[in-house]
């Protein structure tokens, strides 16, 4: 026995009121000096005992009245009460799997020519159940996933709105979340007042959905259900498909959105998976950009395997674009026949390369390789001005504030010093969002850099302080003085994760022959190469900036590249120069993408693709009946073959029953009884 409103049981304490009144009345009486005792004594002798019993009975009835009232209001329920299905009112949460794996054909299809899908089967079954429930039963319909709807969703005692609701639903969603859905159903049922509560689930029981839920979560739900005043029942009605399902699936091979430069050739790799037992031949795969047909390729995919193909596109309009790839698949699931990939095309970047001697031969100059690398964004169209970048090379003495303010990226390559009038312009530009890239070199006046960009200066842009220029020689006895390579992948910086795939280029093959060590600010005497970047914020500079980081290191741990956000922009500080003198990095293939990503890219625009996770719905692999039974036993759920079986099993069952009406009837009886006894006691003379 339990109570729906147990707190109201406290009202039963009101029984003390008649008791106290009775006891007070017993101890309080008036005294009358009486003459006709002979008339009184005979009455007392005759009826004293009888009246005493009646008074006791009256007291008991009066005490019972508040107790019965409190009991009725607390809504008691009896466990294990046997009723017919139509006898007790119930609250039933109907949870249906609306993931697109439900588009698979059902095994028990009635019409082989036009096979019924799992969704249609589940819809039919749900309709059968909701119509088979009693008139007083409350029904809630929910998708088998976490719902944003509040748990106080309206229930229906009429099956028609539920049928209409399920007709409007479609199996076009990603993976289900049965645990969240069941938890929300329990929230909902907890608030209901019906004595019988049920959660009925229709699903195709895909392994990836249900087994990932985990037995611990099932046990948690079971524990919660057992702790509830009225324990809800769980009923599963699996809808089964035959495997393998004939289904083709296409998706981009990237887990995140793409960022591209204007006109940059972009290779999009696509995987087509065939889940059927038959090979798919010459399947057309179409690529569309912003809804416009770009290319169509045909591909052969063997049975139960996948194949890849690549599309090359170049987008010459900046902004957000959407690329869609689709495969022609007349069978079953439509949602996995196409995939979309957002591409952000960056606007034209204005790059200012400050070279001590721009008149030098290109490859001998400090910025020659950099210029080639950035212009390589045009690929094989190098005879045209790149739409992605605008390059300006200038010597320090010809720089003006206007030139600096016109640049999105300022590169100082082995520049000894700058006119002091430009320091403020550079700092202001970085603060507004520009990038400042400083390459080390023998000519750099580190005193000037530390004075104007170091810690303690008005604009402490440098993440680390420079050491003395150092040539690395194989002949040196000190291992730290020997040529170094760049630390191999993996790299954690978003701009460099590109290089975590070796085919994109390897940075660790480069050899560093000379460098200007990057040293932490807070330890000027230290020359420990492993020290991390210092905290440039200690000066309390005007713009807020995050602490610097070292995304690239040498193999021996020395910092190679230090970066530091500054205002809206960023400062990159290299230990080496941009030409071939200090390293062979500029002649390596990885230099081009490295510079592009560091100087042109915006890692913040790269976002993970949620669609990629949903693809597991396409991998139709239902659980075996034994596995479903095992999982059901962990939850304490009953597995039914179909709706009829569910309704049959509930035509006669043990359940809980509310008995507040009985309490109310007893209360009315007690009230009448009190009146009768009192009338009898007083002889109707009151």
């Amino acid at each position: 026995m339990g109570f729906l409103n147990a707190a109201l049981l406290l009202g039963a304490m009101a029984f003390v009121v008649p008791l106290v009144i009775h006891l007070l009345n017993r101890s309080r009486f008036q005294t009358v000096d009486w003459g006709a005792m002979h008339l009184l004594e005979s009455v007392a002798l005759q009826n004293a005992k009888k009246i005493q019993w009646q008074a006791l009975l009256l007291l008991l009835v009066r005490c019972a009245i508040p107790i019965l009232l409190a009991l009725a209001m607390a809504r008691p329920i009896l466990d294990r009460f046997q009723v017919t299905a139509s006898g007790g009112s119930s609250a039933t949460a109907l949870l249906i799997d609306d993931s697109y794996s439900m588009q698979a054909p059902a095994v028990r299809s009635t019409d082989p020519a036009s096979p019924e899908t799992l969704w249609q089967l589940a819809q039919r079954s749900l309709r059968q159940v909701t119509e088979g429930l009693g008139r007083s039963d409350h029904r809630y319909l929910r998708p088998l996933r976490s719902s944003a709807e509040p748990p106080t969703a309206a229930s229906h005692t009429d099956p028609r709105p539920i049928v209409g609701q399920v007709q409007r639903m479609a199996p076009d969603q990603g993976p289900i979340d049965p645990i969240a859905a069941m938890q929300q159903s329990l929230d909902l049922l907890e608030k209901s007042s019906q004595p019988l509560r049920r959660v009925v689930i229709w699903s195709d029981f895909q392994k990836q959905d249900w087994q990932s839920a985990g037995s611990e979560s099932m046990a948690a739900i079971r524990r919660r259900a057992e702790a509830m005043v009225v324990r809800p029942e769980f009923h599963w009605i699996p809808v089964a498909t035959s495997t393998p399902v004939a289904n083709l699936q296409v998706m981009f091979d990237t887990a995140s959105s793409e960022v591209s430069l204007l006109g940059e050739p972009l290779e999009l790799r696509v995987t087509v998976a065939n889940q059927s037992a038959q090979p798919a031949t010459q399947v057309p795969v179409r690529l569309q950009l912003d809804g416009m047909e770009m290319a169509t390729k045909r591909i052969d995919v063997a049975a139960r395997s996948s194949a890849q193909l690549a599309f090359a596109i170049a987008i010459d309009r900046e902004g957000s674009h959407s690329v869609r790839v689709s495969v022609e698949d007349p069978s079953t699931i439509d949602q996995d026949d196409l995939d979309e990939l957002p591409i952000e095309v960056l606007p034209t970047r204005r790059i200012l390369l400050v070279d001590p001697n721009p008149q030098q031969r290109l490859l001998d100059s400090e910025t020659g390789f950099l210029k080639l690398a950035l212009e390589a964004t045009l690929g094989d169209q190098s005879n045209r001005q790149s739409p992605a970048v605008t390059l300006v090379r200038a010597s320090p003495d010809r720089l003006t504030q206007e030139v600096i303010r016109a640049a999105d990226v300022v590169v100082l390559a082995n520049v000894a010093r700058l006119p002091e009038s430009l320091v403020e312009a550079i700092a202001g530009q970085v603060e507004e969002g520009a990038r400042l890239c400083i390459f080390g070199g023998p000519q750099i006046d580190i005193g000037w850099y530390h004075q104007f960009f170091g810690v303690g200066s008005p604009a402490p842009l440098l993440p680390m302080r420079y050491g003395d220029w150092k040539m690395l020689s194989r002949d040196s006895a000190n291992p730290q003085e020997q040529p170094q390579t760049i630390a191999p992948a993996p790299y954690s910086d978003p701009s460099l994760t590109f290089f975590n795939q070796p085919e994109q280029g390897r940075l660790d093959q480069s050899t560093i022959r000379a460098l200007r060590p990057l040293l932490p600010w807070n330890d000027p005497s230290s020359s420990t190469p492993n020290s991390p970047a210092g905290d440039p914020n200690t000066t309390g500079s005007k713009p807020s900036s995050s602490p610097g980081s070292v995304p690239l290191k040498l193999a021996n741990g020395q910092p190679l590249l230090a970066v530091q956000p500054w205002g809206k922009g960023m400062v990159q500080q290299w230990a080496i120069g941009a030409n071939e003198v200090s390293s062979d990095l500029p002649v390596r293939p990885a230099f081009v993408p490295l510079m592009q990503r560091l100087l042109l890219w915006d890692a913040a625009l790269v976002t993970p693709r949620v669609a990629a996770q949903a693809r597991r719905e396409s991998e139709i692999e239902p659980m075996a009946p034994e596995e479903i039974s095992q999982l059901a036993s962990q939850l304490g759920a009953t597995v039914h073959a179909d709706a009829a079986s569910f309704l049959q099993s509930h035509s006669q069952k043990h359940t809980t029953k509310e008995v507040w009406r009985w309490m109310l009837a007893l209360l009315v009886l007690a009230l009448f009884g009190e009146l009768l006894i009192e009338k009898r006691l007083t002889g109707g003379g009151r």
Partner: protein
Amino acid sequence: MLERASSLSPEDRDRLSQLQWHARTAVEGLHLGIHPSPLKGTSVEFKEHRPYVRGDEVRSIDWKLFGKTDRLYIRQYEEETNLRASLLLDQSGSMGYAGAKQPGTSKHEFACRLAASLGYLFAAQHDAVGVTTFDTAVKMHLPPKSRPAHLHSLMEILATSRCGGETSLASVIESTLPKLGRRGVVFLISDGFDQVDALLRALAMVRQLPHEVVFFQVWHPDELDFPFSTRTRFRSLESPQRERIVDPLAFRAQYQKNLSDFRARLEQGCKSQRIALVPCTTQDTPSEVLAKFLAERGGA
């Protein structure tokens, strides 16, 4: 209380002066009065003729009848005498009840006033009136006399009457019998709270003497209505150690049944003994009670 009991208001005296008691049966008085006597006397009321015998007074011979019948007959007349009224006043504890909530006239007080009224009535008629007060035994006894100063003695006894003690009506009445003297009227003024059978037996003995018996049964309205509602401890007026704590609401019906049984048995017994039972309450006025009783008695 004493003054109130023994003194009658001018209204009462006025009303009583208009009343006259006539004995319904013959009474044996010592003096000439207005009441019929069993003896033949000298009144103007002709009673019968009887044959003349030697020694009869010649003046008693009815000469007209001698002329008609030629026989000597003596003419006899009714004798009229005065009445001996004995007032038996109950002053037991139960007569002291004057009400629980708003004490007013007690039954004893009412009884005294009623006795005083009767004494005044009979004294005015030159009838002999006496009083006997009692509880378990006779406390005071004043034999009936018709002298005017006797009324004062009677009033004094009434004024000094105190109620208390238990009731023993039957035994007291029996013990009073020798003091009642020749035939007269006996007035019992009491609540009658005693064993009904014993009381009726005692009254029957009074009737056999043969006295005319009038029983003024005095009630307090509380004893008739039992108007108590809260839990009450009833303590006996006659023996305070006897008490009952009861819920009056629960007892009321049975009490009233007992009351009606008691009254019915008493009424039935009195009727069979030709005793006049006059119930009255302390709310009544003694003179009115007497007036009403005499009116009904005269009508009967």
